[in-house]
């Protein structure tokens, strides 16, 4: 099916190619020296270090992260932070501006922290899987102001903390987090008000307004409050079973009913944390996926937890999660046999994420030639890997935001609950390459605010090496697996042109152009 490649499909990967592949798939690219180091210590040692349950931060990263003010705030604290920075009624334009900036600080800091960790963390496999879950359980700042205080906590408690735990835990943590309930409108989903409640509403409105018509209007408004199917549908379609797999519209409605009352205390004096509001809950028994789910008589939210438990154990969930993981880590078109195997591991281990990742890496498909450099990097992966291979010095990552936006992948801004896609079909349109070339030349040209290719990167090239060897060294650093004939030829041409023009070749003048070309080369777009 694939066109013949320069190397035979059967030829196994060399050890260097294997390690470079590892850094492509379980890391956002290799920093200078990474590949050589693992060639010495071995792939298994690297994996054992990486697939550890507790994520930790290397000191340099820790120091950077500590600079952020809002990253560790709980939802309640973050809400407090945002509301305490409200501009007063008499605020000047300048004060208003400052207030707006502070209210957006949690969002800005989180976006920076996500990128910073992806670039600098030595626990690369964790960061790679965190990005996977971040998209699987997508929430987005585009939802509006209320969510500004909720996503920092969500990223920390739901995604990062659970990255190597089990899927059902992450599922239930997501289901009870204000960010998710808000993003998919479940916090508003409720039973229609009872007669008594309507009467109370009418009385209150009459007392307040003194108008009969306005009271009637308030009642009519209240009658309409009710079920919102948004979260229930995406819970089945995107988080667990996969679209139209094993469930029907009736299941969506039943799950929406069961989950009424799953909300958060969002009022001014509220805790802003998740709560089960029995007053919003539709009481009754429902049939979900062929099972009768009885009302939890204790008045707690046991009914919803039962549904989540069923979903967490469902065969469909194991298959869907396995398929997505294989697609993410191995190939855009996931191998069915491998998916079946990984799904089995899911069922055997109750959705243990580490066990599933190990199963995938252990399969012969992971290091197969046909899957080597066969996935197109997403914009995020492209940018992060460019910063990693060039050991970029970072003072701020704000400058990157516009590039990610132009390429269609700003962090935590994916409107669709699907999250950002991880397959080439979604990203590889004619036109996208122009933006990547722009980024590559801007990066080496020092035109991105807060980011520059480090001197240490260039200093790896032996000072006494002849100009003809510059490209050889630089290629090895940027594309450790090696570049193809056409890319090498293009680099040679550029070097030759440079040498023709100058009598005193200067590595530091020529190198940025070559590195920019390498970052924009076909090989660097693939992982």
């Amino acid at each position, binding site marked *: 099916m694939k*066109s013949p490649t320069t190397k035979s499909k059967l030829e196994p990967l060399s050890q260097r190619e294997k390690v470079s592949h590892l850094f492509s798939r379980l890391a956002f690219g290799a920093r200078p020296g990474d590949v050589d180091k693992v060639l010495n210590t071995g792939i298994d040692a690297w994996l054992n270090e990486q697939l550890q349950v507790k994520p930790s931060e290397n000191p340099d990263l820790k120091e950077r992260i500590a600079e952020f003010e809002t990253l560790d705030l709980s939802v309640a604290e973050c809400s407090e932070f945002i509301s305490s920075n409200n501009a007063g009624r008499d605020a000047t334009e300048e004060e208003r501006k400052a207030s707006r900036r502070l209210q957006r600080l949690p969002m800005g800091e989180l976006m920076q922290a996500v990128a910073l960790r992806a670039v600098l963390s030595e626990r690369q496999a964790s960061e790679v899987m965190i990005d996977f879950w971040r998209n699987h359980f997508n929430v987005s700042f585009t939802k509006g102001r209320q969510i500004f205080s909720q996503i920092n906590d969500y990223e920390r408690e739901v995604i990062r903390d659970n990255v190597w735990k089990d899927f059902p835990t992450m599922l239930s943590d997501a289901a009870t987090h204000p960010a998710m309930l808000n993003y998919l409108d479940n916090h508003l989903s409720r039973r229609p008000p009872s007669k008594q409640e309507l009467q109370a509403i009418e009385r209150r409105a009459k007392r307040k307004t003194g108008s009969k018509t306005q009271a009637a209007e308030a009642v009519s408004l209240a009658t*309409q409050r009710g079920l919102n199917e948004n979260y229930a549908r995406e819970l089945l379609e995107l988080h667990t079973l996969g*679209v139209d797999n094993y469930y029907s519209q009736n299941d969506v409605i039943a799950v929406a009913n069961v989950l009424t009352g799953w909300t958060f205390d969002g009022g001014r004096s509220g805790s802003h944390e998740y709560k089960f509001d029995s007053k919003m809950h539709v009481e009754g028994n429902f049939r979900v996926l062929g099972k009768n789910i009885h009302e939890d008589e204790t008045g707690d939210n046991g009914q919803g937890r039962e549904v989540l438990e069923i979903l967490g154990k469902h065969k469909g969930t194991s298959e869907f999660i396995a398929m997505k993981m294989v697609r993410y880590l191995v190939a855009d078109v996931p191998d069915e046999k491998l998916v079946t195997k990984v799904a089995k591991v899911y069922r055997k281990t109750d959705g243990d994420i580490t066990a599933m990742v190990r199963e995938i890496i252990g399969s012969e498909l992971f290091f197969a030639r046909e899957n080597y450099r066969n996935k197109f990097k997403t914009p995020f992966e492209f940018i992060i890997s460019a910063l990693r291979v060039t050991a970029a010095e970072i003072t701020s990552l704000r400058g990157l935001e516009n590039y990610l936006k132009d390429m269609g992948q700003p962090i935590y801004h994916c409107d669709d609950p699907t999250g950002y896609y991880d397959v*080439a079909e979604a990203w590889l349109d004619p036109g996208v390459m122009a933006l990547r070339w722009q980024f590559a030349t801007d990066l080496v040209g020092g035109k991105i605010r807060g980011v520059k290719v480090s001197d240490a990167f260039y200093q790896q090239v032996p000072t006494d090496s002849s100009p003809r060897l510059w490209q050889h060294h630089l290629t090895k650093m940027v594309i450790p697996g090696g570049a193809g004939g056409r*890319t090498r030829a293009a680099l040679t041409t550029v070097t030759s042109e440079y040498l023709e023009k100058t009598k005193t070749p200067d590595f530091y003048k020529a190198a940025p152009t070559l590195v*920019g070309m390498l970052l*924009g080369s076909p090989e660097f777009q693939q992982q």
Partner: protein
Amino acid sequence: MKNKNKFETSRRRFLQGVGAATVASQVPAFARTFEVGQAVPAAIGANGEKSIVCIFLRGAADGLNMIVPYGDSSYEGHRPTLAMDLDDGLIRLDSTFALHPALAPLESLYKSKRFAPIVCAGSTHGTRSHFDAQDWMEFAAPGNRTMREGWLNRYLMATKTESSATFRAVAIQELLPRSLRGTFPVLAVPGNATKKKSNKNLDIFERFYGDSGGMLEGGEMANMQPDNDAAGVVESGRMTIETLRRFQEIVGKAPTKRSGDVTVSGSAYPSSRFSTGLQQIAKVLKAGEGLEVAGIDYNGWDDHTGEGGVEGKMATRMTDFAQCLAAFCSDLGPELDNTTIMVMTEFGRTVRENGNTGTDHGHGSAMFVIGGDVKGGKIHGDWTGLAKKDLYQGRDVPVTTDFRNVYYSVLKNHFGYKTPQEFFPDFRPQEMRSLY
């Protein structure tokens, strides 16, 4: 393009390279005819100077809140808070329907009979998943997971001739809408990427991605096939260079206008992302360089909460949408006679409002067809009423006009292209005779 055949095969490889194995193994019979070069009669391919602008409202726009059935006796009962009446500023179209007040800028197009709203339009497939429904509408193949070529791309491919313009289609956004994805190369370009500064990059990277390839040290030709599976990237890069250059040439020729500027006929573009996109499309269309198809998305129509009636999130969005569209039409001027603008959305929303002054995922919605040659000025499509017994599954607007019949009618009447069998997999389209 030096060699069309070579280009064709490499483009096919491009698609395989991006991992869509289904494309290779299950190319629908219709698409396969391209490969054996089954000629398309020249008369069909040559559509003169005509063009289609395809606008997709993503998120499932509520047709009932656009073409409002104020005269339907069940309407208000379903939507106690959202419902509007003529007193609320609705713009009466006939005894049943009115335009939402926010769509007022489109009224004159309706009156001049160039705006044809189609009610109860959409896909007959029952899915309420945004993502499946969008795919299927844009691939024009509901329920079919193997078709991966957009319907407009299929048109472009089928009518491709030696003399076709090199720049037949474009999308003004970061990524192509799925309707334009496929074998025929189409450029996706964000509105702000038209600046000249990226030209130097095109020259630099042509060495990797251009047609000629380079020479290796020994003087032998570099392998045209790059290392491993980057073939897809190389093709994408090559097309980026080719088409972006052409695009800049065309846009560069047109007189520049800033947003907020008043166009020739007096209608102002608001300042928004959609506006920027339409302005770029207008430039290319007016340049007369043979652009046939342009695609653009408008996101954010998933109004589960706060949709509102006269006022609300949807009204705000519709205001921008209608102002942009009206400005676009007046910007096009006489060119509008050669243009058909299609507006569609993946499905409609529940007839009954939900608890949050919003609506949930439904079934049928509305489609708009706008243009000089359209029979506008009246409501198209069979309206079956909003009585509960007449609703789809007792809750949603039924679909009485399959979106594929609209596609078929536009292609046939506007482009003079009669779709061959299997253009729409497992579907025999019927012409909407009232439309043209």
